[in-house]
């Protein structure tokens, strides 16, 4: 399956792009996706502990099972206000 990954805030600077796609095995979780992303964008791995993850517009844990066509967002802690 293929998922779209969007980077927000300074994660775009770290990745050098605003988005990418990842091809994963069926049944893959967000944890599997992160392994793929960190292998290709190692600059993002240093921020792993504080990284927030959403699928669509909802936060999801590392155990979340992805589906083909999902849009995943990775971003640093939020700072509104």
């Amino acid at each position, binding site marked *: 399956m293929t998922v779209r990954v969007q980077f*927000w805030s300074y994660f775009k600077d770290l990745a050098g792009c605003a988005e990418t796609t990842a091809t994963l095995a069926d049944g893959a979780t967000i944890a599997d996706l992160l392994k793929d992303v960190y292998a290709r964008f190692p600059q993002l791995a240093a921020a792993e502990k504080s990284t927030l993850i959403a699928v669509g517009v909802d936060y999801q844990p590392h155990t979340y099972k992805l589906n083909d066509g999902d849009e995943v*967002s990775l971003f640093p802690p939020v700072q509104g206000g």
Partner: protein
Amino acid sequence: MTRSLTLTTAPLDEAVLLAQRTMSTGMGAAVYFAGVVRGTEGDNAISAINYEAFEQMVRHQFDLIFDQLEKRWTLESVRVVHRLGVVKVGEPSLWVEIVSPHRGEAFAACQFLIDEMKRSVPIWKRPLK
């Protein structure tokens, strides 16, 4: 509870927002909060902050917060306005209005809304020198 969220790149006109307030006769409290851009970020002087938002998710996460407000307190209305893009020092970036029968729930709801926003609403700041 009526709810209103505005995301805008235009400067906030607090007088206009205040003039748009509506309160039914059973309401006795209107609490306001304005978040204003400070002239420093850490130890460094700045001239402005550039706000970036994942807008679709911002709207959804605010809806979830509004749902929680509705469950916890008796409120007549909530209005939130958040600036996006470049906001200069001294200008408000966030404006909140809570209308309720009594002050206690209005203050509590306002505090809760802002705390939750800072925890879950995907907006980020980039200070500009």
